[in-house]
């Protein structure tokens, strides 16, 4: 069996269908051109959608990165305070964020690839539409000439076959675009659902513990300084007392 003969039969069938429908091929040509322009618009919108999805992923990645950096410095601060358990907790959370970042990176690559494909499709489609605009005028002129010479039959089936081909090309581009749009939409939903954001805004209990520890340590310092003063001089300056009193309670 032959691919080329079978395809020829298929294109013929499409062409016959087209001929059955069309009253004047010149009108179908204009209609077909309109449809192509619409497709082009659709592709351009898809490009914009995918670019938005890409930017969202980038924003999320940068938020995650900030959070990871923060946890890193918190771990360091905890160690400085001698709180190894807290440092371990901070590092564990940081590791979880790193996993998410890797996942985001993978998704970024996918979206990037989609964007590239869509831009490429838009460019090809633009070329196709431009050339069709010229070609359809030629087709219309040929049809008009053939009509005048009563050679209309062959010209019509030839022109119609070209239109079938153009239609199949457009359908094909459209199918590809729909597929890409579906994937971009799924990605967008995933991002919007917040499935990826769980760890970006945790209640910062690590920072709370660090702050508490450093407050306590500041109070301890003040207390020690005060104790030293009290021990050295039996008459401390009155002005210093109110400040020291406020820090007195926790100890």
């Amino acid at each position, binding site marked *: 069996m032959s691919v080329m003969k079978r395809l020829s039969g*298929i294109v013929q069938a499409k062409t016959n269908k087209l001929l059955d429908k069309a009253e004047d091929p010149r009108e179908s040509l204009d209609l077909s051109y309109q449809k192509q322009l619409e497709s082009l618009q659709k592709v351009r919108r898809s490009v914009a959608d995918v670019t938005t999805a890409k930017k969202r992923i980038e924003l999320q990645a940068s938020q995650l990165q900030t959070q990871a950096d923060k946890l890193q410095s918190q771990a360091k601060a905890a160690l400085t305070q001698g709180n190894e358990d807290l440092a371990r907790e901070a590092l564990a959370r940081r590791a979880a964020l790193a996993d998410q970042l890797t996942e985001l990176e993978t998704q970024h690559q996918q979206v990037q690839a989609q964007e590239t494909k869509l831009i490429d499709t838009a460019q090809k489609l633009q070329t196709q539409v431009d050339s069709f605009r010229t070609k359809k005028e030629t087709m219309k002129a040929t049809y008009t000439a053939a009509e005048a010479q009563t050679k209309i039959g062959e010209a019509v089936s030839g022109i119609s076959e070209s239109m079938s*081909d153009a239609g199949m090309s457009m359908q*094909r581009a459209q199918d590809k675009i729909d597929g890409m749009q579906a994937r971009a939409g799924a990605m967008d939903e995933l991002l919007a659902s917040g499935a990826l954001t769980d760890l970006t805004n945790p209640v910062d209990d690590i920072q709370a513990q660090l702050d508490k520890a450093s407050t306590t340590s500041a109070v301890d310092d003040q207390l020690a300084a005060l104790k030293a003063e009290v021990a050295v001089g039996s008459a401390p300056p009155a002005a210093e007392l109110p400040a020291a009193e406020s820090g007195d309670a926790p100890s």
Partner: protein
Amino acid sequence: MIVRILGEGQYDIAGAESSVLEGLDSVLMEAVETGDESAFAAALDALIAEVRRTGTPVADDSFAPSDLVVPFSDSTLEETKGLLAEPGGETGSEDR
């Protein structure tokens, strides 16, 4: 003989050179039937190269029905299978 490459245009191939094309065509068909993706891509490339090599592009203002039709040059195996399953394919092959 007029051959159309889908999405590209028509080529006029002078009469008797079609035995090479027929050979390439059946290799392509075999690849479709066995589902061999890489064999399919290679066969399609070869077929299209042969049409371009031996044919003369048909002028834009000349419209004649094609005798043979070649799949889109960047077709996948899957896509071509789908296309061949469309109406007209079976009757087209039984006729000849």
